[in-house]
């Protein structure tokens, strides 16, 4: 089987690597978009003026591929309206004003049953109710992922601790500080899937995390686990790429990992499963990394979902006088540059990067010189320049013959292009155009 291509960007992880996870203060107001998962937007079950508690259900899943949404603070619903969204630009959201009390809704639910006696279905129901989605960034509803068609036999569970995006260290910190919870969460998922083998993949720039998990596994005498150290390279945290490095198996084009009997979950997702089942706590907060050009603001923090970016940067001590060039939500390879800092943290947010002029990519776009760097960088084995240039000339039939739909949008091609051609954008364009034909 052919080997896979990777790139090796500077990882910039030293900036935030040693920052312990801090609790962010409770925001005065949260904006909770109804779309922070893949699939249909959730449907509000509260109205303006309603009082809610931290963890109260405020919108429920609409359809099979959708997700529940919970309030991340206690207070009053002040509006349900179009609001800034960090990825979509704007979307309908429930806006809640804090009463400063942070009264928890789920503490009422006392766990009566022993965890080990919970059935598979009961665990899935708890996961579904808690509104857990893939926290690595894809935001795919977890309960759907854990309910494969009966014909598909799942035999491996991979816990994704690769965290291959530069700058980000939130998964790393979580593995260092909450190894036990991650192991318990992984065992729950393994139980649901009926899987014996659990492989945790971690890149070797996080040796301490590997050690942390290994020693926790030893302490709890957890069985069936294997922690694998991976070479540091991008985009190894991509599901399909991780499967290839760990098992040397390939997910068929257009298919899902479950087609070859594998399910992959990010460590934060696994942690959320632990909280949902052991504490009956819905997903309303997550760990994110604040990093970038200014090391004085670098932090790993546990934030309430819905907190505006502005509030978090204020808390981290970002001075508005600084010469800020760009603010990115997510990692530098796939993240989205923000224009409105009122946009909130959503479930799939892994970090906020504040970049200064050193990250200016000023050079203008030149003609493709066919250097083939993008081809040698593409982890899917595509020919990005051929798709990109055909797409630029609006020859989408030619673009289609180079299989743009298999692109995982990792950004490696644009990263290496010496002519500054926005290859990922051109490929995305080709994807959209081709989809609208058929």
């Amino acid at each position: 089987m052919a080997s896979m291509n990777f790139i090796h960007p500077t990882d910039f992880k030293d900036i935030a690597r040693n920052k312990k996870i801090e609790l962010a203060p409770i925001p005065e107001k949260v904006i909770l978009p109804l779309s922070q998962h893949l699939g249909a937007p959730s449907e509000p079950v509260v109205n303006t003026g309603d009082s809610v508690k931290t963890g109260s259900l405020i919108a429920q899943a609409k359809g099979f591929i959708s997700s529940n949404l919970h309030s991340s603070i206690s207070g009053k619903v002040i509006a349900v309206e179009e609001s800034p969204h960090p990825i979509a630009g704007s979307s309908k959201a429930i806006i809640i004003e804090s009463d400063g009390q942070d009264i928890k809704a789920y503490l009422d639910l006392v766990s009566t049953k022993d965890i080990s006696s919970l059935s598979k279905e009961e665990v899935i129901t708890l996961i579904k109710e808690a509104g857990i989605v893939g926290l690595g960034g894809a935001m795919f509803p977890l309960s759907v992922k854990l309910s494969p068609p009966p014909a598909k036999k799942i035999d491996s569970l991979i816990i994704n601790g690769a965290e291959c995006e530069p700058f980000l260290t939130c998964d790393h910190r979580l593995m260092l500080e909450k190894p036990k919870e991650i192991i318990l969460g992984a065992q729950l998922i393994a139980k649901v899937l009926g899987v014996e083998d659990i492989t945790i993949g971690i890149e070797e720039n996080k040796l301490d995390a590997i050690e942390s998990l290994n020693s926790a596994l030893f302490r709890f005498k957890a069985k069936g686990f294997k922690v694998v150290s991976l070479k540091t390279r991008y985009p190894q945290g991509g599901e399909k790429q991780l499967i290839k490095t760990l098992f040397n198996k390939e997910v068929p084009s257009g298919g899902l990992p479950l087609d070859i009997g594998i399910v992959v979950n990010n460590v934060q997702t696994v942690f959320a499963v632990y909280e949902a089942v052991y504490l009956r706590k819905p997903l309303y907060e997550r760990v994110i990394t604040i990093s970038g050009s200014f090391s004085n603001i670098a932090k790993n923090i546990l934030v309430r979902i819905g907190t505006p970016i502005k509030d978090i940067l204020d808390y981290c001590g970002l001075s508005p006088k600084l010469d800020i060039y760009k603010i990115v939500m997510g990692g530098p390879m796939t993240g989205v540059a923000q224009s409105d800092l009122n946009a909130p943290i959503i479930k799939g947010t892994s970090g906020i990067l504040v970049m200064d002029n050193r990250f200016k990519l000023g050079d203008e776009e030149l003609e493709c010189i066919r250097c083939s760097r993008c081809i040698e960088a593409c982890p899917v084995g595509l020919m990005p320049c051929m798709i990109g240039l055909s797409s630029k000339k609006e020859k989408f039939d030619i673009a289609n013959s180079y299989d743009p739909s298999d692109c995982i949008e990792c950004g490696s091609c644009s990263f290496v292009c010496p002519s500054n051609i926005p290859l990922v954008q051109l490929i995305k364009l080709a994807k959209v155009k081709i989809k609208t034909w058929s």
Partner: protein
Amino acid sequence: MSKLTVSPSPHIKSGQTTKKIMWAVIISLVPAGIAGVYIYGISSLNVIILSILSCTFTEALFLKFRNRDPKTILDGSAILTGLLLAYNLPPQMPFWIPIVGGVVSIILGKQIFGGLGQNIFNPALVGRAFLQISWPVYMTTWKNPRWWPDAVSSATPLAKEVSSHFSYTDLFLGNHAGSLGEVCVIALLIGALFLLFTKIISLHIPLSFIGTVGVITWIFGKEGFFKGDFIFNMLAGGIILGAFFMATDYVTSPLTKKGKIIFGIGCGALTAIIRLRGGYPEGVCYSILFMNAAVPIIDRFTKTRKYGFARKSPSAITF
């Protein structure tokens, strides 16, 4: 807060640019130029300067006609074309020959296709082929190294009747008549190592090119089989310059590794055939030009293997 920039991801870049690549190739060619000027005397520097000036000026003029930013000239591609053209010329010739060569290289070799990245043929080789056909006498009037007693009009080692007079050391150091930039193998290899080390070129094309020439000239080089002087053939003439610096030109070579190997083998086979059976003693220039023409078809049949695509048995080719 200052105004935030919004741009598509990724937000970091490798730092490699087209301009840096062009200038790195120019730098890698400097040792060979110094060697050439040292061997044939300072007057041969005129050929290099005139060729570069001609290419740069023509490029600037065309950029102006096409309403492009004249700063584009700094991308170094025209300077590189001029340099490569000069390296393919005899060290002494009328001053207007490199000038005409430069104009032809840029106009017929590059700009009529739409400029940088669009040309099918290696521009410098287009210029050289044009000069070779138009003024064959000037293009084959060689000069001996300046320390030789008879200064002018010697044959190159590839001229069949004189090949036995040269030792491998002479070939390696460039102690013989030949084109300006192609004579000193050691200087070229220093530059080539730099390009390999900085990952600007890969070994796919040079190895398959030179290897093929070696194999074919070994088998068919002399009466009977497996008696040819393949080391001579791998060192003499323009093959090192051609294989490392001209056949590897990104724009006019295939995209994938597989394609590059096929391209290199094609260049090598054509070079060997021209050398052994053709009317010209040297075949590097034409073999690269022929293979340049084959690049689109090579690209078409050497697509990459994609992740998640089961290997299929080759299906019928449809046009």
